[in-house]
């Protein structure tokens, strides 16, 4: 698909020329037209820009927190110098990555909430159950909930997997490696 067909702005594909001598404009042109990139954002590019923005935010947070640590001098560098310097580089690169995103096509695979939700819930459940109810219930919870992430749900094979892993987990981690885990209950 031609990129110009996806524009949200006032321009569309029919304005696109085949290129040629007239296209050799200097870089300064882009800089003199500060609004140029605003028009270029397509629906497809928006999530990519948000991703770059998050990296930039991470850098900003790191620089803000890093600024509270002693910077020291060049000879005797404090704890704050390196984090601040690296954070600044990260922010710069996040901006560069955003600009790069605007210049390129984006393509992503399908996204489904189902795996993300059930895998997360399965791990959360495991962390809540392992110290309270013990190895067997937490393993069954992990396997059965994570099994919901993929359709169709296969209860029989999941229960068999959970049984096998409970036994293997007991043999390897409790008997073999002496991990302080209980099978059932505190």
């Amino acid at each position, binding site marked *: 698909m031609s990129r*110009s067909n996806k524009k949200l702005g006032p*321009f569309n594909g029919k*304005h*696109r*020329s085949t*290129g040629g001598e*007239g*296209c050799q404009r200097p870089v300064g*042109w*882009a800089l003199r037209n500060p609004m140029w990139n605003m028009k270029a954002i397509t629906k497809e590019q928006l*999530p990519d820009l948000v*991703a*770059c923005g998050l*990296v930039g935010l991470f*850098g900003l947070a790191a620089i803000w927190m*890093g600024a509270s*640590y*002693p910077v020291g001098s060049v*000879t*005797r*560098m*404090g*704890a704050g110098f*390196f*984090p601040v310097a*690296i*954070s600044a580089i*990260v922010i710069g*690169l*996040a901006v*560069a*990555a955003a600009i*790069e995103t605007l*210049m*390129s096509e984006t393509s*992503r*695979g*399908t*996204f*489904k909430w189902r*795996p*993300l939700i059930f*895998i*997360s819930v399965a*791990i*959360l459940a*495991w*962390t*809540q159950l*392992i110290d309270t109810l013990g190895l067997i219930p937490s393993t069954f919870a*992990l*396997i059965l909930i*994570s*099994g919901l992430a*993929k359709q169709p749900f*296969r209860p029989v094979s*999941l229960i068999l997997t*959970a049984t096998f892993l409970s036994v293997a*987990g007991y043999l390897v981690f409790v008997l073999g*490696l002496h991990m302080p885990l209980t099978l059932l209950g505190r």
Partner: protein
Amino acid sequence: MDTLTNLGLGFQAALSFENLLFCLFGVSLGTFVGVLPGIGALATISMCLPLTFYLAPMPAMIMLAGIFYGAQYGSSTASILLNLPGSAPAAITCLDGYPMAQQGRAGVALFLTTIASFVGGSFSIILMIGFAPILASFAISFSSADYFSIMILALVAASTLSNGSFIKGIAMVGVGLLLGMVGTDISSGVARYTFGTVEISDGISLIALAMGLFGVSEILSNLMHGEHAVVDARAITFKSLIPTRQDMREFWPAAGRGSVIGAIVGMLPGTGPTIATFMSYSAEKRLSKNPEKFGKGAIEGISSPEAANNSSVQAAFIPTLTLGIPGDAIMAVMLGGMLIHGITPGPQLIVDNPVLFWGVIASFWLGNIFLLILNIPLIGVWVRLLTVPYHVLYPAMLFFICIGVYSVNNSTFDVLLTLMFGVIGFGMMRFNFPAAPLLLGFVLGPLLEENFRRALVLSHGDLGVFVSRPVSLVFLVLTLIILLASVPQIRGGLTRLIRGRDAINE
């Protein structure tokens, strides 16, 4: 011959029952995860890292290394039979391996990739035996400034030479460096980025980070996209493995060239097996008298990349063991594992702990011989593995991830951290931010900062120390060359932007 005496010492150590057992276990597990698409060597090594805390350092290193190179042997199996790489470096083997399988020559392809792996691995082991002591004795005179520059080269190379955007790659190195700073600053004792919590006052757990970025996110990604094809295990008989004389004539020179390319690429900091396989494939295609047969089942097309793959994996141990600088994310985890075991890799290792150093190297060869046995007579067993359905596999992987991370500190906090990094890693994968440079940055971060600070203390704050020392200068110039080589991407992108915009405005 000093080296030979040492090597004899190494073999003596490696041939002990315990070490042989863990070597066999490591390479078997490596082959297992290598064969299965969707579990990488990195996730497996981080999963096994907590288990090795119960072992002495030597069997631990032997086992973890075995997983790494064992996985390279196994990874070609799925490439050939399913057109689905068992791991990233094996992607190139699909190009000619799968057409061979379609022509009914899967057995020959499996046989030749195993032999190629052995040739490549052996080549680099010999190189390592000859070269590592020299490099170590040279590296003993390296100063902090030199180390800083080598690490910069490793980080820049790792983020620019991989696929995709090098800007995003370097940005992820930066994020990794920042994550590596979490915890108590070694030189001043200041707690950084800990949010006042006890759990991360010693830093973020390497295992939680690696398992999240490479285990959980991989599972999420696999569940979102597609099903695996099913393979017919009965088609691989012992007889079908035997290549023709013509096959062997094409095989040897290609495997030789692949070994050399792999060794060179593997030794360089920041370059991993994936780059080695791509380089050797394109070299074969360029050298070939009839390049049109590539992609249709060319023997050279599978032999050279597979030799390069294993050669680079073994060669990657050279900078890690002698300089203490890992070349890629997997070696970074290995380095992390060694540090946890109280081994500090570097030029001193070979002097201070020769039995360990030479024992691990000797085990590589034994491991490669095990792999030859595991992969030729027993290939049918591994092929049958590909029939394990994913709906059984991924819950089991989650279980081992959870209990593996938990076992390090008996802390559910680390497991939650793993989940968080898993979700972040999935997002990164989705938006083409590479995870490997992040992990490399995370492991090298503290070393980088320490050497930077020390270099400036020694030079009384003079930044010129990084260019006035010849070794440091050489590595910085190499870094600059790699960066400049990436510039056409920017330039090309910029021209495209201006042209595109221009055309629209007309």
